[in-house]
């Protein structure tokens, strides 16, 4: 539980591709205390997803206190002045709901999926812990150990996750984006109860959050109930909106990281560029979205046709994370077999974007846009998907109209827009190349293996 989503890339826009607000039918309003509310009626089944997005994540942590946002997320399940100890989990279970939370570098999100008849209980619980968190010493001690174990399980035991951290540190240097969401082991153990309380007191305030209700509810009822449960919560006096950390967008730097790890058996290569995100530059972001689709998303993409099907690499893909407050990242990655040449793989990373741009025709561009729009209707289906998309957009500071205009904005992307955005990326964006490789010595591939059996 309490999934950490390190970077919400949302699989390169799978949600956004399916969004259309005309079909989506969402409404937003603001309570007097500044809480923004989004309602997405979907009367298919008597169920509802509640999501509360706090616009705060690991980038807002004080230096040396990495992991505070994530530890706080865990402690939100450990008791308030009114709902003691683990009673939150008990109440959620008694009412048949599934509750969870995740922390990223930019947001912390709590969510409950329940029968519509239980929504008021879920709202009361969520509202209560927005205002009344009470951390007891024992729970703090245990939960800090648990997030320590979580880091061991998710990161330290996983070579690809360790390598991703090395890449992030190198690319973002001394920006807060360089730091892992979990914090490091030493950081986790150095966090005090007062650090977490200070973080909570500063950032968990209604005017720093977005509440999404997606499911079997109408706007009028949602207004009444949100006012009832969340309307009473006062803004935090001390709240100061967090400053957006600066990140290397102007001066081009090129980094290169190479790691050999004993668990890795075949080479994987990635090249990432720091590019504008959707809130930073909508026009460029749309151009990069369409380009990423054409270039490396799925079968029939440029990468698949030219390198995978031709046997030059085992697999290849690209992604563009546009739904971010800070800079976005455009990535190309290839997996090789142990027989394929690593230098040639790296050459593909370095030349394929330009080659793809050269070959892109106006006709192909229109086809790609059509593909991106063909599944828009899906966003009406599962209320959980709709909640995720709307919450993320609003937590970024964008509005529902940005979802509504998705189709229009996408259709407006011209070949020139793409050429200009991609050329700018190639010439001016800071980039990083990462090579995750097996050890090339014979000896290291032989691990001590011993199997024992005992007991009956």
């Amino acid at each position, binding site marked *: *539980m309490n999934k950490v989503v390190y970077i919400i890339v949302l699989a390169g826009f799978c949600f956004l591709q399916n969004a259309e607000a005309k079909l989506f039918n969402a409404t937003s309003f603001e309570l007097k205390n500044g809480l923004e509310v989004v309602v997405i009626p979907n009367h*298919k*089944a*008597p*169920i509802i997803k509640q999501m509360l997005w706090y616009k705060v994540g690991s980038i807002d942590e004080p230096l040396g206190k990495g992991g505070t946002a994530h530890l706080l997320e865990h402690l939100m*399940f450990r008791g308030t*002045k*009114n709902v003691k100890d*683990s009673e939150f989990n*008990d109440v959620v*279970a*008694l009412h*048949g*709901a*599934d509750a969870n939370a995740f922390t990223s570098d930019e947001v912390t999100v709590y969510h409950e999926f329940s*029968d*519509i008849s239980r929504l*008021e*209980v879920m709202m*009361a619980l969520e509202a*209560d812990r927005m205002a009344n968190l009470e951390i007891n010493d024992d729970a703090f*001690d245990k*939960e800090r*150990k*648990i997030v320590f*174990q979580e880091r*061991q*399980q998710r990161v*330290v*035991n*996983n070579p690809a996750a360790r390598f991703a951290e090395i890449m992030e540190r190198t690319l973002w240097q001394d920006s807060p984006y360089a730091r892992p969401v979990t914090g490091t082991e030493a950081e986790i153990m150095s966090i005090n109860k007062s650090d977490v309380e200070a973080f909570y007191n500063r950032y968990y305030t209604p005017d720093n959050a977005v509440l999404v209700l997606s499911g079997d*509810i109408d706007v009028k009822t949602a207004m009444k*109930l949100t006012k009832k449960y969340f309307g009473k919560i006062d803004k935090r006096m001390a709240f100061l909106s967090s400053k957006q950390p600066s990140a290397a967008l102007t001066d081009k730097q090129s980094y290169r990281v190479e790691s050999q790890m004993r668990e*890795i*058996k*075949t080479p994987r290569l990635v090249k990432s560029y720091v590019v504008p995100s959707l809130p930073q530059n909508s026009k460029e972001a749309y151009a990069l979205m369409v380009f990423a689709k054409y270039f490396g998303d*799925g079968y*029939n993409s440029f990468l698949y*046709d030219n390198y995978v099907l031709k*046997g030059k690499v*085992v*697999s290849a893909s690209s992604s563009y994370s546009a739904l971010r407050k800070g800079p976005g990242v455009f990535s190309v990655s290839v997996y*090789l077999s*142990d027989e394929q040449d690593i230098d040639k793989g790296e050459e593909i990373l370095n030349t394929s974007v330009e080659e793809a741009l050269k070959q892109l025709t106006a006709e192909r561009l229109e*086809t790609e846009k059509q*593909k991106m729009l*063909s*599944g828009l*209707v*899906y966003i*009406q289906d599962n*209320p*959980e998907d709709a909640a995720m998309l709307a919450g993320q957009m609003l937590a970024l500071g964008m509005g529902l109209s940005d979802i509504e205009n998705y189709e229009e904005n996408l259709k407006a992307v011209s070949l020139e827009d793409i050429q200009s955005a991609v050329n700018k990326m190639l010439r001016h964006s800071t980039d990083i190349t990462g090579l995750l490789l097996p050890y090339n010595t014979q000896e290291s591939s032989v691990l*001590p*293996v011993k*199997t024992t*059996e*005992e*007991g*009956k």
Partner: protein
Amino acid sequence: MHRRFYRANKPRRFLLLKILLLVAVGYGVWWGYKGYVNPTFDADKIYTDSILKEKTFTKMPVEVVTPQGLKLWLIEDHEIPIVSMAFLFKKAGRGYDAQNQEGLAMLAADVLPQGAGKYNGHDYHETLELNGIALGFNVGLENFSGQITFPSANIGAAEDILSETFRAPLFPDDALKSSKQQFLTALAGQKETPQGELGLEFAKVLYGNHPYARNPLGNAQDIENLSREDLQNYIKTTLVKENLIIGIAGDINSERASELADNVFANLSSKSDVEELEAPKMNLQTKRHKIERKTAQVTSSFAALGVTREDKDFYPLYIANYIFGGSGLTSRLSLEAREKKGLTYGIGTYLATDRKTPLILGQFSSTPENYEQMYQILLHQWQNFATNGVTKEELEAAKNYLLASYNLRFNSTDGLADMLVAMQQYNLGLDFLQKRNDYIKNITLKQVNKAAKRYFNNLPMEVSIGSTKVQKGEN
């Protein structure tokens, strides 16, 4: 002194009453104050007073027999213009791969949606994407399954491409070659994480020499040798009508659903000569298997004999498991190991109810110095569960969850189609949805505790991977 004197001379009549009154008033004031600054949280009252009342999902499945004699289950729901069809072929899973063709079913499922009939590889994907069609195939130990989901306006395109897929799969050379390469690379990287290696080792211990123990990605040499003819032959001889289950949900009526099923499946062969695989003899006797590796955490899987979905003990054990390790953070295992002691990020159990391998399965991971303590907690909880069973309160709480969460299953169209296949696969009956909550309500404490005693009587078999030889920490 003065005070004592004074009190001694006061009449004592009504004193007790006055004290009581004072206490009562004081308590009232304190209660009111407490309620004002610290309103107590009464979830039951919020629920009872809620303006949002319970509703029933009314769209129930029907059985349709097509003109060509296929049987399908359908939930019509015209709320949103989406249709999903899920299907499953029994006796077609990877357990049925011939000995020198390990990986056949998986490879076939991977390359199947990459060209068929008049659609070459490029046209195939282009047609799917331009019509918003999501299509995928899956292979388990026993079954081959698939699902197609599409906007209802594009039903013609979806129908045509899927029927061509089964009629004349191309398995194009380049796609087949690159798919093989991906399998080989995945095989090489399978032990990259301890979890990956544990999955392989656990199957080997549990299933011994049975095909279920094989690597899910097959065998490198066999994969290299598989030809297009092998894959085409697999599709033709294994995916047959007598082993087919179909579930359709969404914006479609029964006539059109029949037509869709007939157009896609009616031309398949009727029968296959594949023989039912024998159930594996599961090795649960030897209780501990340790594989030493240098890792940050020890990862552990465990198993004990469980029940099939059709077994009369299914609901009692299902509820027992929910309480023991199935309910997430509120389960007994999680409360002991995680919430109270902070030893792990997660521990849990679940039931596998397949006919041949009914099991209670579980997993946890923790740093080496915590591992032995974790294992002992598991054993202690396990034995205690068999001996003492569950309490009345735990049973009530479990039932509450299972009843109140009933509607969550109706969240998506593809989920509905999937559910219709599962209902047929496990013989739950067309009226399962109407009856399900009564099944839960009728389970008694006695039944649950009988199941706990019976299925938790034997300690679980456990396989762990990691550095268990590390010196013990302070606790």
